[in-house]
């Protein structure tokens, strides 16, 4: 349980940085309100309705979390803090847990705040707890997967590079995640790329459950997201192993 101490440190570093937390929670809320207002002005009740926007914006928020988690790890690595930790008797599993667990409360906060603001803006939640729970689980898995991807970036790149690559991923999620634009309508290579990545699957599955689909209806999408999450953590574990003894 040695990882608990490091997880506590990572959590403190994060929650004690008001800019970080403000961006992690504030940006998704700001985008949600802006696009909701745009939808009302345009009179668009399809892609800019709250039922479509809220799951998409929640996943969009995870893309920022991805960048922040990567930057924290890259900063620790560059500033010799991680090398110091690597001389302690901790294994790759300890590092993976301590650099991912502290983000779960942030992921949950992002989901709760997005849906809370969504309800305030007129979002109708599913009537039964099972569907609500299923939406939550889909988004939680996607959020954890995003943290895993951030960990990979943090282990491969320096802070500036993580910032650049992270911004590119945010743009990718925004454009090819199907948040504001119907991916099928775009078609072609953009559809193929978007469909190959987990983000559009997470958004699509959450939206379908919001309008009544069960696990059977979204199982392929859910397993796609779960598979990516497991893959990101497997790669992260290998990279930590590599970083431990170079």
């Amino acid at each position, binding site marked *: 349980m040695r990882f*608990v*101490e*490091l997880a506590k440190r990572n959590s403190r*570093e994060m929650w004690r940085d008001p800019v970080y937390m403000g961006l992690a929670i504030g940006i998704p809320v700001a985008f949600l309100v802006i696009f909701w207002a745009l939808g009302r002005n345009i009179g668009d009740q399809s892609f800019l309705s709250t039922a479509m926007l809220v799951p998409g914006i929640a996943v969009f928020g995870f893309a920022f979390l991805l960048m922040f988690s990567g930057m924290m790890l890259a900063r620790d690595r560059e500033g*010799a803090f991680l090398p110091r930790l690597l001389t302690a*008797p901790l294994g790759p599993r300890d590092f993976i847990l301590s650099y991912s667990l502290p983000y779960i409360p942030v992921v949950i906060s992002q989901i709760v705040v997005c849906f809370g603001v969504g309800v305030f803006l007129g979002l109708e939640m599913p009537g039964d707890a099972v569907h609500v729970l299923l939406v939550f689980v889909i988004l939680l898995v996607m959020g954890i997967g995003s943290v895993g991807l951030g960990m990979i970036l943090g282990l491969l790149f320096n802070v500036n590079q993580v910032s650049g690559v992270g911004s590119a991923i945010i743009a990718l999620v925004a454009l090819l995640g199907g948040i504001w634009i119907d991916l099928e309508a775009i078609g072609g290579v953009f559809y193929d790329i978007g469909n190959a990545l987990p983000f559009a699957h997470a958004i699509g599955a959450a939206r379908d459950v919001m309008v009544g689909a069960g696990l059977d209806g979204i199982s392929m999408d859910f397993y796609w997201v779960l598979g990516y999450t497991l893959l990101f953590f497997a790669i992260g574990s290998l990279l930590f192993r590599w970083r431990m*003894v170079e």
Partner: protein
Amino acid sequence: MSYATACNSPAVQTFDLSRKFGDLIAVDAADLSIQEGELFSLLGPNGAGKTTAIKMLCCLLRPSSGTATVMGRDIRQDPMGVKQIIDVSPQETAIAEHLNARENLSLIGGIHGLAKEKVKERSEELLEMVGLARRAKEQVRTFSGGMKRRLSIAMALVSDPQVLFLDEPTLGLDPQSRRGIWEHIAGLKGKKTIVLTTHYLEEADALADRIGIIDEGKIVALGTPQQLKENVSDMRVMVLRAKNLAADAIEGLKRIYPELKVTNEGIEITARELSFYDIVDYLRPRGVTIQSMSLKQPTLDDVFLHLTGKELRE
């Protein structure tokens, strides 16, 4: 327990320890034996291979060939076993900036598996020792460089390691902070096996029981500071202060006396045979006004110059 009275079992032993980065040999077949309770200093200029050697001993870098043992545990075969009995204060100040000093110490104690009560007790002792007890609750990002370095050393001590690695512990600090750190390190002498890397001669001279001089990855000399100085005891060091000392005059003298170094005030010439008259006769026709000439005892800097043909601060 001082080094002189310490037992003779090696705490750290290296066997042809080498590390290459492409074509560059950072550490070249190092054979060292550091005794339990000894404060051993690896002295060398930047890029000599000191940090690479420390990283291998701390199991952060895999040796290209050879191996080492720390308290009998092989760094290749049992890295986790080595990590349980060592701690390191890295060259860069590796601390968690948003945590306070006490939380930083708790973190390191916790990841080394110490019980909470023990960590608390050790933390208080160490905060007192490094003079940070009054600032223990402040986030360390508000600390000065010297305070951060003192905390970094305290963090390396919280797990009560059997072998402590201090990689350039006073790098970049002002003289006053450096002296403060020296006092803390001197206080640990004999209580712990300490491997200290530095490129400050005064630091190695003041603190180390034994010094290994490393240059371009090779250990070129090994011994107590006194033994190393005795190697050049038959050498004479002339300190010369002069006006109008032009570069061509210095170059000319360097051809006669290769171990010549330029200082802020003039030049220092190290040689077994020195002639005042020859030097004066050489410099006067070149318009140099000699202000003073004196002889001094050889220092570790002279030892380094003699062994490697270059100055330590190059």
